[in-house]
């Protein structure tokens, strides 16, 4: 219960800087701090991967040329391992094929060193917004999931039929229950799912891809 609480607590948005040049890291952190944004730096992709946690919020500011694993390779790895942080690339020598490749792979922005403050801050703001949206989506999905999980097996059955558009009478017939019992289950579902209307309930189920009833099993 305690861990649940901790992950729920919103983390401060941070720019995770990965660059092998310590003075660049220092400069970036200083600049971000001066405008009130938190920054953390790592000398390598491995070092960042070690400290990353699912609740990390913010974005990645990645040097395209890194020792060990290159920034581009790292970006691919991030996607494979499900690290959803938006990525901003930076490099001192931007070659077009590389830019095209990383942008295609879903990078937010590509900054050529040395870059303007506005360029950086704009990219960071954008990345933060994307990340926020990502996180709120993730949060909403997980809360709906939690609500669905709190339903009883019977309630879940009833919900599937309701979202499929069946009337109480039909549900009662399908489940061999009285209409009153079905109504009770239905009210329970609406309460636990915190849905004001059937339309809202349908939307929620679609969001988490909860399957609706597709017909009699017989």
């Amino acid at each position, binding site marked *: 219960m305690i861990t649940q609480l901790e992950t729920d607590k919103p983390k401060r948005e941070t720019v995770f800087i990965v660059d092998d040049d310590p*003075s*660049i890291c220092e400069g970036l952190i*200083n*600049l971000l701090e*001066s405008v009130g944004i938190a920054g953390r730096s790592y000398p*390598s992709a491995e070092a960042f991967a070690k400290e990353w946690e699912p609740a990390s919020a913010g974005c990645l500011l990645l040097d395209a040329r890194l*020792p060990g694993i290159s920034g581009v390779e790292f970006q691919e790895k991030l996607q494979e391992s499900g690290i959803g942080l938006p990525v901003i690339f930076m490099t001192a*020598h931007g070659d077009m094929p590389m830019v095209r490749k990383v942008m295609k792979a879903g990078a937010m922005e590509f900054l050529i*060193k040395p*870059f303007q403050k506005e360029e950086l801050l704009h990219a960071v703001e954008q990345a933060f917004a994307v990340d926020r949206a990502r996180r709120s989506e993730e949060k909403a999905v997980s809360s709906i999931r939690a609500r669905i999980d709190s339903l009883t097996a019977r309630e879940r059955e009833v919900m599937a039929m309701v979202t499929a558009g069946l009337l109480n009478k039909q549900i009662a017939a399908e489940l061999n229950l009285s209409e009153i019992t079905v109504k009770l289950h239905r009210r329970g579902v609406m309460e636990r799912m915190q849905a004001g209307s059937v339309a809202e309930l349908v939307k929620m189920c679609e969001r988490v891809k909860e399957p609706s009833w597709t017909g009699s099993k017989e």
Partner: protein
Amino acid sequence: MNSTRCNSKAIYDASMTDGTDRFSQWMMEYCLQPCAIAVVFVLVALLWTFLLQHVIAYPFVFLFFGAIMGSAWFGGMIAGSVAVFLSSILVAFFFIPPLFSMSVTKESQSFLTAFILCAIAITVVSSARKRAENAIREARDQLEEKVRERTAELQKSNVEIQESERQLRLLTEAIPQQIWRADAAGTIEYCNRHLTDYLGKPVELLQGEAFFAILHSEDEPLFRQGWREAIESGGKFEIEARIHGAHGSYRWFLVRSIPQYSAEGDVARWYGIHIDIEEQRRAQQDLIVAQEHLSQLSHTLSMAEMAASIAHELNQPLTAVVTHAYACREWLQAQPANLVKASATTEKIVQESTRASAVVSRVRALFRKEAQVREPADINLLIREFVRLLRDEAIRREVSIGLVLDDGLPRMEIDPIQIQQVLFNLAMNGMDAMAHASAPRELTIRTERHGEREVLVSVEDRGPGIPEGIADRIFEPFFSTKPEGTGMGLAICRSIVEMHDGRLWACNSPEGGAVFQFTIRTQV
């Protein structure tokens, strides 16, 4: 005819193995044949004398002289003597009174004596004459024989000479090269067909000055000079020149001429050959062009690499400066201004700017190579000075630096700053490699002779050595194993060493650790 008779006689002689055969031949030659000849002649004389007896009043015995002469002539001395004998008897018997008796009257004795003396004299003279004649004829025959033999021999050798000449000519025509022969003064006497075909001119139009007209005007003076020198000195002549062909263009030929000497040791004639080297020449030209192109390309490439590395090296501190500067402005514009942060940030700006300027001076030092600074320097002295500069850094890193220097090294024409740059890079690499190594951290710099013309400088560390598989990549631009490395250090070192006609390579020491070695050529 004579020769065949001689031959058959010789063969006959050769087959004479038997004594009896030889005797019978002897008998034939010296008895029977002369006797027969004498008898025939004398009988003919006798017959004619009888016939003429009635015409001429006085017994006419002179015909016997004729018979004796004939016998001596045809039968030799023996036949002559036999004829004398027979004639004397017959004359005494038939014509000297008393007739038909061998006895001779006193008054006729002088006549018979005169007859016999005359007959003997005739025999002697006639046979001598005959012998002389025979000797002359024999001599003439022999001469003729000899002449005939000589003639045959001459004819035979003439044919042989003609044949060998024909073959030689065929050979010179068959050789797919252009061949000529010139007299001692250099006038062309003969050209093979290949040459005349190529030039489109007969031999007569290649003599004297006309020969030089076939040459390209650029090659002519050198050719003329070389040819004149060869003729004067009597030595070989060889030159590459363009020769104008009948088809209207020039081709490159290797013209080679060797003299043939007379028994007196003077040049008798010159033999020349023109070998077509147009293709070779063209291939060579292509190769030179390709090489130039390649070197230009590699130069451009290395310039591009260099530019990229400089851009990167400069961009890093500049990026830091720019970001710090932005931050500084923010700290100052904050309400209230954060002066502590702002001041710390300006300090950073100064640091990073200094770093950028260091990059610039490094680049400038690198580009000084274009000026090719070369001064005679003592490499050992250079290393000692450099180690003094490195002392603080070494103490800070707890590294001890050992020197193993060969004091007998010659001075070398080098750029001392660049060589120190190489040493600095290698030493820093070595110390970096030992950063996490347990003691003892030793860096050893060695100098020694390497072959006749090179000095070998080694920088050894006691670090973990060069990881397998990257030994040949560490000299590539942008290849670095260090977080803060640009990957240019060793690439630059290598280019510096190569500019000093040396080589730079790396290997792992058997005692552990890496060894970087480079050679520098000593003065030639």
